[in-house]
């Protein structure tokens, strides 16, 4: 067999699907979106025993119903026949519940095999599973593994090869016996001939019709005549179908597991850690502390890349003098040093942070900690239309918005992911915190504390309003149901596979982010560069021309250009102001300032003599709530794969910042 074999990976969230997928594919994976859908698509390939395999990680879903895009995509992919075999994952420590996906799969004609993951957790709970007996009962290959231990993958490959060569289907006789006791099932099934809809047996279709599955009903409507459809409709309307088929599936699971799982009965108790996380009073502080510690821990793996970034920046001076000495034109020298090297240095420093955040929070996710975060913040985040996990990117964004964006990888719903990033932008990042308190103290003395409090309150209001504005389009009303999820047992994450995966993602992020950042920085640089050395750059001309308008927002042209510059990076905003007020060579000073050159020693005097208090207030609000920086913009695009939504969020923030500045300015005018 020279053809590649295609595998589709199917499993409930927390079944260890991603761990297995990452371990198998390593760097050979590709992340995109399902065509026309806002659901992440992960595909990869691997070789075993000289045979090549393609593998698709289907979106995590709890069942094969049609309640979400994820579930419909999963089903369509399986029915499309693109895969040769389906690998169903279950959690062997919670076998009874996690075999539900297998029960729901029964009746789909594509061959499959079953992987019982988390063997280590099951063993620690003193559960022993008789694999070969289960294999006989189910009629498909079964393997018990720990996805976090590569030594155990032999069993996986054996089951895979057996499934591919024998093409076995799940044995569903006794499941059908259970179904047939449901009122109306037999009659329904008699109306549905075999092979009516490709990929599904008539048993499967009849059970889904009983569950009032809208997609299957629509397919049936196309496949049968009106009279038959009327009959089908009258039968399925008579019963509380989904409850009955659900019970039948679980009775079937109980039957399959009888005599298969030997266990010592244990009293159910929460572990010490869970008692803390679920505590009425201490749960929230414990979660926040966990995330903050995670954030601090992120700096450890981040440091090497950050060091590379700084080393790149130090190349500027020697490269510039080398280029000048070989007679390179000024324009090129300026471009290479001020745009190219500067951007790369910036990107590497941020990338270090992204790498650290993805690794640390990936570990927390795999270990089961993120599920606890979800639990604790479910109520609070639910008000914004988000899941509890969204609190993590928000907290990370106080450090760096790009890290926050990378942190949304643990959110499994695309709409909620975009909404989380959109809200995370409102959280003032480390760069804002390095500028804002200093500016506030300079202008308002002890009043700075009050300004910071108002900024934090504005942030909460901003997030609330933004959630209202974007929420409707991103998280549909009918998708906003409360939490129904399991708290998985804690378990040891797989370092190697995760590290490879994170490295791969960081590389992807680097490529994409570099493109966007170079593009934006080049445009900005062209606007601020004075080509013949004497004429004013375009940015200056625009700035002074629209000053009457920007004045309304409380910004004269210098402040407005500094505001625009803060979209590239907030750290540079103060330097830009000082460069602009001091006159001099506009573009040179401008780019030196943006790259973090020493602030002029008389900055304070310059600011106080040129900027009024209401203007300062307006400027503080403008840069705090402006888009975080160009790298965050690029990272947002990288995470959500949508140029449209990235642009929407960016424009929204630019306009929002100007509006806030205007309000602040006019309030300031009333006070002073």
């Amino acid at each position, binding site marked *: 067999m020279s053809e590649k074999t295609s595998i589709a990976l199917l499993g*409930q969230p927390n079944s260890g699907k991603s761990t297995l997928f990452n371990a198998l594919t390593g760097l050979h994976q590709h992340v995109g979106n399902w065509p026309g859908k806002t659901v992440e698509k992960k595909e990869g390939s691997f070789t075993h025993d000289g045979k090549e395999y393609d593998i698709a990680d289907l979106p995590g879903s*709890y*069942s094969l*119903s049609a*309640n979400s895009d994820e579930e419909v995509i999963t089903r369509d992919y399986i029915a499309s026949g693109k895969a040769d075999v389906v690998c169903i994952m279950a959690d062997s*420590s*919670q*076998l*009874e*519940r*996690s075999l*539900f996906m297998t029960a*729901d799969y029964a009746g789909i004609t594509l061959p499959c095999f079953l992987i019982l993951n988390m063997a280590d957790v099951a063993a620690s709970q003193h559960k022993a599973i008789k694999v070969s007996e289960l294999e006989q009962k189910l009629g498909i290959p079964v393997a018990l593994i720990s996805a976090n231990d590569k030594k155990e993958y032999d069993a996986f490959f054996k089951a895979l090869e057996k499934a591919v060569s024998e093409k076995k289907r799940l044995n569903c006789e006794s499941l059908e016996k259970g179904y047939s006791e449901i009122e109306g099932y037999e009659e329904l099934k008699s109306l549905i001939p075999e092979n009516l809809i490709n990929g599904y047996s008539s048993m499967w279709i009849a059970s889904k019709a009983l*569950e*009032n599955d809208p997609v299957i009903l629509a397919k049936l409507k196309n496949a049968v005549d009106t009279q038959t459809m009327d009959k089908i409709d009258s039968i399925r309307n008579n019963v*509380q179908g*989904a*409850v009955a*088929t*659900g*019970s039948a*599936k*679980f009775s079937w699971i109980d039957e399959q597991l009888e005599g298969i799982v030997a266990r010592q009965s244990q009293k*159910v108790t*929460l572990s010490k850690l869970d008692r803390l996380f*679920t505590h*009425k009073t201490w*749960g929230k502080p414990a979660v926040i502390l966990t995330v903050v510690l995670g954030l601090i821990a992120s700096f450890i793996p981040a440091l090497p890349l950050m060091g590379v970034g700084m080393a790149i920046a130090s190349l500027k001076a020697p490269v510039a003098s080398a280029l000048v000495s070989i007679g390179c034109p000024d324009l090129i020298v300026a471009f290479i040093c001020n745009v190219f090297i500067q951007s790369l240095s910036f990107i590497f420093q941020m990338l270090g942070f992204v790498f650290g955040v993805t690794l640390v929070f990936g570990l927390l996710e795999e270990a089961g900690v993120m599920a606890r975060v*979800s*639990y*604790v913040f*479910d*109520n609070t985040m*639910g008000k914004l239309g988000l899941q509890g996990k969204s609190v993590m990117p928000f907290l990370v964004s106080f450090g760096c918005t790009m890290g926050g964006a990378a942190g949304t990888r643990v959110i499994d719903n695309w709409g909620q992911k975009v909404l989380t990033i959109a809200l995370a932008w409102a959280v003032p990042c480390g760069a804002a915190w390095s500028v804002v308190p200093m500016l506030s103290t300079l202008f308002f003395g002890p009043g700075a504390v009050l300004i910071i409090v108002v900024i934090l309150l504005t942030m909460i209001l901003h997030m609330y309003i933004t959630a209202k504005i974007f929420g409707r389009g991103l998280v549909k009303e*009918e998708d906003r*149901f*409360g*939490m*129904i*999820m*399991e*708290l998985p*047992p804690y378990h040891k994450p797989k370092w190697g596979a995760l590290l490879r995966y994170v490295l791969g993602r960081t590389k992807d992020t680097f490529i994409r982010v570099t493109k966007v950042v170079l593009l934006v920085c080049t445009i900005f640089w062209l606007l601020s560069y004075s080509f013949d050395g004497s004429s004013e750059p375009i940015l200056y001309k625009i700035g002074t021309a629209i000053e009457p308008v920007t004045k309304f927002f409380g910004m004269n042209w210098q402040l407005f250009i500094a505001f625009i510059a803060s979209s590239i990076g907030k750290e540079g905003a103060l330097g830009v102001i000082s460069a602009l007020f001091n006159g001099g060579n506009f573009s040179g000073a401008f780019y030196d300032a943006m790259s973090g050159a020493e602030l002029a020693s008389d900055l304070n005097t310059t600011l106080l003599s040129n900027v009024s208090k209401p203007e300062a207030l307006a400027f503080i609000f403008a840069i705090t709530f402006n888009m975080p920086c160009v790298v965050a913009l690029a990272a947002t695009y990288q995470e959500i794969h949508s140029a449209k939504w990235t642009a929407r969020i960016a424009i929204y923030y630019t306009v929002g910042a100007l509006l806030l500045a205007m309000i602040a300015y006019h309030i300031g005018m009333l006070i002073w």
Partner: protein
Amino acid sequence: MKLGELDELQNAVVTKLEGDHRFISRITSIGLTPGCRLQVIKNDRNRPMLVYSRDTMIALNRKECEGIEVTGVEA
């Protein structure tokens, strides 16, 4: 009675599920079907409920619990 009315550590059996199509599908897929036993682990206001059923610790939003009818049983 409703699931939410149970006290912590009380055992119960699910008797009835009510709600829309999505809810039923979701709640059965996590293992809560009529006849199944569960134990309440946590029931604090302003937090999802924690129940243990079919070897699994399940977190349930309080509003969702409204659709789950149970009868208490002895441990």
